[in-house]
Each structure stands twice: as C-alpha cells, then as structure tokens.
C-alpha cells in the first residue's frame, strides 16, 4: 500500500476557553474521498484550516504526501482549498482565476493559458475563460473554484462546505458532479460538511466529529448500519431514539424498559449490563408496519400504535406513530408498494422491528431518563 496522502498524528488545537481539536489521529488513502462530518462548532473547520496551513496545531503533526507540514506556510503546501464562499477573484476573468496559481509558480504564459483552458474544458466550461466571475451561475462558479485548485495538481484538495451556499436542487446536482470529478481526477479529496447526506453520498470514508474528536471513522455503510456511538446513531440518518434501562440481557441482545414501561429489545453495542441507563436507536426503515399483528413477521416482538400523522415525501414518506400505551413517538418509513396510502390519523396499527437491527448503547452522561 502506498503512503497515505494525509496523516494526522495526535493533532491538538486549543482556543482560549476550549479544545477545538482534541488529539486527533487519522489517515487518508491516496485517491480517496474523505469527509469530516459534524455539527457546527465541532472543530471540523479548525481541522481543515490546520491541514491547509492557516492555523498551526498546538500539538501533534500533519503529514501530507509523506512529508511533515510543520512550519510550512499555506503557499508552500501541496494542498489547495475550495472555500465555503468559493473566494473566486472578482477582479479577474474566469481564465485568470484558473491560471492564478500557475502564474504564482512562474509557469510561462503560453503554458499557463494551455493548462487553464484544458482544465476549464475538463470541468465543462471550455468557453467561459474570458467571462467575468459574476456572469457565471452558482454551479459554474463551483466548478471554476475546483478547477482553480486542481490545475495545480495538488496532493490533496480540501473542500470547506462548498455546496452550502447553493439551493437544494443545484446541491443535489453538484453532489453527483463532485463525485464524478473526484473519480475522474483521482485526486484525494478532504471534504467537510454538516450535511450527512453529502457525506454519505460522496465519501469513501467519513469521520464523524463531535467536540474535537472523531466519534467514528468508517465507510458510509459502517456509519449508517453499524454506528459505534449514540452520537453517530443520532447524527447520521434518521433514527428513533428510546431512552430506558436494561432489564435483562440475552447473549447479544438486551431487553430495555422505558421509565413509563414500554419494553423493547435491541442489539447491545459496548458494555451494557442489567440495570444500566441506555439509549436505543431504531431506524425508520427497519421497522415493519401492519394493520394487524398477524401480518407482522412472526419472530419479532410486536408493538401496538396509533397513527399520529402521515408524512408524505415521495420515496421518503413515513408515518409518525404513538406507541399505544406510553404515547411515545415512533417513526416508520412507508413501503413503496402503496399499501398504506390510505392510512388515516388515529388508525390503530401494529409494528415490529428486528432487535438485531436496533442498537442499544450505554447512555451518554446526562441523557439518562430524558424522553426521546
């Protein structure tokens, strides 16, 4: 295996009153798409700016392409960044923007022109070189910003929530475009976002960050199907959260009762013993909905509920239930068969879920006993 393009080794950054990045170590393989996913204020921007060289870490080391980046200023790092607001130079044409980095390296003018035009061609803006930046649409500017960085053939391309400023439709489109660009250039991308869908769709690996640390680092599938911490389970994808205490354990499974007496079964993750406060997460698509208990899979514990509201959203439609006895909310994804299209509020229904696909974590500090 080749040397990873990016290695962070126990990187620490403190600001006056808090630790923004807390002894973080990870590596990013050459040619992969790595995302750092976290809520705002989790330290992901600080981490990205340390990789770019705008902030120096207080401890630890960052190596890019196998070389330590200590005391290397941003303009000497083999790294380029696509800024959140893109930061295209309004005083220059599109072509001059793309050729900017080459000009700083002293590339001769003819060569510069050839390479920047070739790069614009590759991102589908072959005829835009002489346009002004403000004549371009949001998506085109995005591509110019990426072209401006990639023309320098960096070891690493950093992207700081570049889709944040776009409207929803364009964002969906640019997601696909970014993934295709990354695949065609083969450059290692490090992408930060608070949008879990961007991270899941785009990445080969995702680090879920919270309070300056990675909660979990893995493939999008790992994060979604095998979350290792309650934070990841709650942050990545939709989830039903049930807080309670373990009443008994049975091999890999545990039985959990909420304070008001709803009993569910789930897979234990981490150290879960009888009597512990726990958090259970059940994905909406894991649960099965039925009009009568007889239609449910026979080997799953059954629950009764009442329809509170139907949330129609095309392929993402769901129904919001209340558990019959405790009135706790529970969300179930509706199957695409149209079988429940006539579901009405207040209708009595039955539901169940496979305990092996529900995750039970030791409760985080301060969350025990809270209602989900």
């Amino acid at each position, binding site marked *: 295996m080749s040397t990873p393009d990016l290695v962070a080794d126990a990187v620490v950054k403190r600001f006056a009153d808090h630790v923004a990045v807390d002894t973080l170590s990870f590596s990013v393989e050459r040619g992969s798409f790595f995302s750092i996913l976290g809520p705002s204020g989790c330290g992901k921007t600080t981490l990205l700016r340390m990789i770019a*060289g705008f902030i120096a870490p207080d401890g630890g080391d960052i190596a890019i392409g196998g070389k330590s980046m200590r005391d290397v*200023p*941003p303009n000497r790092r083999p790294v380029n960044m696509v800024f959140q607001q893109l*930061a295209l*130079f*309004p005083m220059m044409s599109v072509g001059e923007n793309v050729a900017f980095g080459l000009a700083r390296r002293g590339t001769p003018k003819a060569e510069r022109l050839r390479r920047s035009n070739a790069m614009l061609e590759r991102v589908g803006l072959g005829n835009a070189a002489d346009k002004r930046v403000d004549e371009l649409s949001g998506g085109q500017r995005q591509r110019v910003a990426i072209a401006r960085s990639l023309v320098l053939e960096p070891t690493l391309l950093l992207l700081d929530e570049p889709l944040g400023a776009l409207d929803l439709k364009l964002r969906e489109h640019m997601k696909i475009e970014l993934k295709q660009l990354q695949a065609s250039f083969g450059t290692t991308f490090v992408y930060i976002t608070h949008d879990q869908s961007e991270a899941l769709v785009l990445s080969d690996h995702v680090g879920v960050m919270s309070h300056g640390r990675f909660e979990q680092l893995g493939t999008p599938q790992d994060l979604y199907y095998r979350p290792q911490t309650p934070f990841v389970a709650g942050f990545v994808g939709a989830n039903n959260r049930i807080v309670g205490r373990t009443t008994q354990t049975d091999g890999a499974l545990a039985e959990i009762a909420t304070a008001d007496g709803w009993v569910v079964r789930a897979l234990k993750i981490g150290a879960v013993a009888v009597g512990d406060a726990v958090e259970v997460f059940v994905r909406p698509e894991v649960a099965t909905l039925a009009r009568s208990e007889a239609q449910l899979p026979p080997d799953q514990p059954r629950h009764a509920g009442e329809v509170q509201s139907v949330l129609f959203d095309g392929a993402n439609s769901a129904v919001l239930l209340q558990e019959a006895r405790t009135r706790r909310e529970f969300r179930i994804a509706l199957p695409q068969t149209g079988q429940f299209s006539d579901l009405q509020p207040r209708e009595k229904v039955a539901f169940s879920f496979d305990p092996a696909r529900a995750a039970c974590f030791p409760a985080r500090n301060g969350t025990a006993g809270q209602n989900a």
Partner: protein
Amino acid sequence: MDPRWHGRLALGLLLAPALLWLGALIILPHVDLAVLSFRERVGPRQYAASLTQYKTFFAEPLYWHVFLRTAVMSVVATFLTLLLAFPIAWIIAKLARGRAGSLLFIICLIPFWVSETVRTLGWMILLRESGVLPALLVKLGLTAMPVELLYRDATILVGLVYTSLLFMVVPLVSSLESLDDSLIEAAYDLGSGGSAILRTIVIPHAAPGITAGCIVVFMLTLGNYLTPTLLGGKNSQWFTEQIYTQFITRFNWEQGAAFGFLLLALSTALVILGLRISGQRFGDVMRRT
C-alpha cells in the same frame, strides 16, 4: 394641489440649500472670476477684454516655475500620504478587531479637532531653530548647533502629509474593509506570497479607494495655503501664495483670477491623468468616497 406637484415641491425644497450653495458660492464667483481673468485695465475704471493675464503667466518664469513646483510637490505629498496611510488603513480594516479598530480611527481623527492653524503652529514650535526637536538633536549629540528645520521642502511635505492623512485613511479603510478575507486566504493557498497578494488581490480591489483618496488629498494639497506658507516661509513658493499676493498685496484681481483658473485647470488635468493611468472611472471612484 396635484400630488405630483407636491412631490416636486418637496424635492425642490430639500435640494434648495445645496443648489443655492452651489450656485451662489461656487458657480457665480467662478463666472465672475472667469470674466475678470479675461480682461485688462487700460485706464482708470476702464477695462478691455484681453489674454494679457495668461500671457504674463507664461512670460514670467517665476510664475510657471512655482506652478510646476506646486504640482510636483503635491504629487509627491499625495504619494507619501498613500504610502503612510495604507498600512494604517490595513491595520484598522483588517487587523484590529472591534473596539481597537474604532479606537485607532479616533486616534487618526483627534488631530482634526484642533484647527489647522494651531496644528501647523505646533509643528513650528517643534521644528524652529530654538524649538523642541533641534534642542533634542543637540542634547543627543547628533548636531553641534541647533539646526533650523523649518523653511525646507521636506518640512512642507511633512506638514502636508500630516494634514492629509485622514482624508486618505478614510476611503482606504472603507475599500479594504469590503475586501473579503477569504480572497486573501485563497490567494495565499494558491501559492502567493505577501507581495503577490498585495499586487494581484489587494491593490486591484482597493483601487477605487486608493484613487479616491489620492484625488481628495491631491486637491487639498494643491489648494493648501496655510501649511506651505507657515512651514515653508518665503521659500515655500506655493502657487496659492501667488494667487494671494495678486489679490491682496498687489490688488491685481485680474491676474489673481487667471492664476486661480490655471490652478483649477492643473488639478483637473492631473486628476484626469491619474484616472487614465490607474484605469479607473470617476463615477466608480466617487461612489467609494
């Protein structure tokens, strides 16, 4: 009354002070001065149209030497003001955060609470032969005798730069504040060093502000009377002094009026030249001030 008329009347009334000021204090006197400059006294209370006043200017080397000297010194003073004001504006706009920025701005403003005359007299107290600075130089052993620091070109320039600084700092700060920091970071990230960022990003962005500041400072300097006269004494040779002399000492209003128009032509020509060189448009520049 027709509501449309109502609106027009209101607009007219609102504009009236400005229009009156412009008409009565700027345009009318200039028309009068223009008429004055194109006539010649041929006898007691007898005048004839002529170009004599302008001919005298070109025929008498002293006049156009002073004229050129004033122009060159003003350009130099403007340039020095820009050099000095740019770092100050940069600190206020980009480095100082919040209160520190406004504090620095106030520090720049404070000298203007004192009248220009008093400020200039302050410089004289500091710089004259028996003043503070020459005494200090003797004390430090740098000069054997107190030197006269007044009445030198450098002294005039110091005074002019000092008087003009604020008028350069203000447009520079506003144009630098509007420069997005991420543009600087992006340029840095793409391989630029400090001087390349200054040349390719900061100066092109701040160009309208720089031009606006330069125009204001240049006009103020060219038309300044007090500072060159007090700090430069008899050697100052500032063109406004020539105008003053014609009007007040020589009582030759015709000649003074012609000089006034020549100065106006000079400042207009140099401002147009400056805009041409920097590739700026007057409208854009004025919007920045």
